[in-house]
């Protein structure tokens, strides 16, 4: 059952069409992450849900209540801002209790709620401090605490970790995941960092140019993107795209001429009719450097050692460059000639308009 439903949401700025018909339904308790490149409308969408921006068209429903025109304070939402937006002239305790005091909650109840939140976020020793006396991570926890104390129906996070250093970001990510498990409240989280999206989300919403590109679990998006945009957006380094110059039909498979070799792709993994021209997508981690018997060959241009693995940039015979993930100590040298073997099951095909036309290998066998 849908808890938060967004229908045909449009947002126009003066000359800019920021949201172009967003439809989305979120179930209660779900952790949904909006992700996309900058300017894709993810923050605008979150702010429209929060009521900080008004929508031009469409409706937002929360828990069977139309909140489209409601003031943000009446929507039963709490938001954690990128800059934390703590009130600088108030102590941590006052920051936590501000909303409750405005709502004229009795003092004893406020004290009780603040105490339980501060205990759960380990804020007790900080309650009398002002925000400027706190570290980044502590401010972050206060901002989260300020949201929790109101017990909202939905938490909104606007790139909450982007101001933290790398180590703290990983730690806070974990704390957020724990928090969601503990509270079980619906959370909507905006980020441009796909690692945050993949690790935190129950479902990821990928936005592009004001439209939803795809919605799915992190694994679905990784394995079954429905467009070139999603395929390239998810995964680091990004998916390699190979030009297919010619398609030859054989009995149960297609022979794809990629200029430096041929790839045989099973017919039954193609959705619908075979188009006249396709592109072939393959992730760096689904190709392997082999001594012999590879699908095609190339020359190593550059190796990036990451310690746990190495990214090898390979120039193919037709001047195209691809990236292949190799084991860390594979003893490869720049300029070396290598053979590349691909995992056929992980190959994805795109048509001319960059939509995916292939199915997963395990789905194909059921045909």
């Amino acid at each position, binding site marked *: 059952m849908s808890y938060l439903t967004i229908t045909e949401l449009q947002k126009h700025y003066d000359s800019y069409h920021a949201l172009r018909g967003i439809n989305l339904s979120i179930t209660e308790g779900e952790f949904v992450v909006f992700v996309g490149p900058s300017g894709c409308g993810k923050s605008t969408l979150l702010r429209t849900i929060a009521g900080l921006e008004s929508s031009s068209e469409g409706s937002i429903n929360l828990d069977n209540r139309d909140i489209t025109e409601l003031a943000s304070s009446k929507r039963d939402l709490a938001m954690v801002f990128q800059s934390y937006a703590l009130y600088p*002239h108030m102590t941590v305790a006052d920051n936590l209790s501000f909303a409750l005091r405005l709502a004229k909650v009795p003092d004893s109840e406020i004290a009780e709620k603040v105490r339980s939140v501060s205990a759960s976020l380990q804020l007790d020793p900080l309650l009398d401090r002002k925000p400027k006396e706190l570290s980044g991570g502590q401010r972050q926890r206060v901002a989260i605490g300020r949201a929790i104390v109101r017990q909202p129906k939905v938490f909104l996070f606007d790139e909450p970790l982007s101001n933290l250093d790398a180590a703290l970001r990983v730690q806070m990510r974990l704390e957020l995941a724990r928090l969601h498990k503990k509270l079980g409240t619906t959370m909507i989280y905006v980020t441009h960092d796909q690692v945050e999206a993949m690790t935190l989300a129950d479902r990821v919403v990928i936005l592009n140019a004001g439209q939803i590109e795809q919605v799915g679990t992190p694994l679905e998006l990784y394995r079954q993107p429905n467009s070139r945009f999603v395929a390239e957006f998810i995964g680091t380094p990004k998916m390699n795209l190979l030009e297919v110059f010619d398609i030859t039909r054989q009995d149960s498979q297609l022979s794809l001429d990629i200029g430096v070799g041929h790839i045989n792709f099973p017919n039954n993994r193609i959705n619908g009719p075979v188009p006249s021209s396709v592109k072939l997508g393959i992730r760096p981690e689904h190709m392997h450097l082999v001594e012999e018997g590879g699908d095609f060959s190339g020359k190593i241009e550059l190796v990036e050692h990451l310690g746990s693995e190495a990214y090898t940039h390979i120039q193919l015979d037709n001047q195209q460059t691809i990236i292949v993930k190799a084991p860390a100590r594979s003893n490869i040298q720049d300029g070396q000639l290598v053979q590349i073997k691909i995992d056929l099951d992980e190959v994805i095909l795109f048509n001319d308009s960059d939509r995916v036309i292939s199915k997963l290998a395990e789905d194909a066998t059921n045909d």
Partner: protein
Amino acid sequence: MKRTITRLLMAPSVILLLIWMIVPLSMTIYFSTIRFNLLYPGQNNFVGWMNFEFFITDPGFMPAVLNTLILLISVLIITVVLGVALSALIDKPFFGQGIVRVLLISPFFIMPTVNALIWKNMMMNPVYGVFAWISQSLGLEPIDWLSDFPLMSVIIMVSWQWLPFAILVFVTALQSQDTEQKEAAQMDGATGWHIFRYLTIPHLSRPIAVVVMIETIFLLAVFAEIFVSTGGGPGYDSTNLAYLIYNQALLQYDVGVASAGGLFAVILANIVAFFLIRAVGKNLTV
């Protein structure tokens, strides 16, 4: 060793500043202890505290001290309260915001003498002033501002002159206010008034302290407005300390008493500064 060199290198500027400050001060102190009247040249004998006695027992002294303080406090209150209110009002974008801002700030560019003349001749004149015209068109008796409410008239002129300064400082300060904080407060259920009360006012506390400090320095020495408009009168009703000192030195040619008055003004400024710093100065630390 290193310390000595540092001090040596700093010495010229420190000494210059000291001379700059000490020579006029000691000359004032010296003049205040001798008979120094330009009408009786050559009779510059030592008189001790007599000049101070003359100044303090002058019938204009108590009114002048009171007028100085009333003028200072009234103008501070008017400029800070109206300044905060107007700045908050024009902070949100609206059509013609730029022009409104320029208009609000422009009185600051008008020199005090001209300011006083404008108010005296064009606004407050009982026969052809704007205020008189308004009173008359409402069927009321025109008010002769400068003779009936002399100090109030000066307060209005000086406030008009200094309000733009306050607005300039507050508008700039408001622009640095964090919008996410306001949005967070909005989501927390705060109304516009709550945001103003709990976020904007605390945010402005430091600019307010700055405005109060700077205005105090200038308002203790208001002179041109009084000189041009009321001439300190009627009686001593709009005479402040600066004007009284001028009166002693240049109308009665008594440099000795004027110097004593000048020293008294320094003491008064220090007393005011002491209380001001205690009241608002804590906002300036950190």
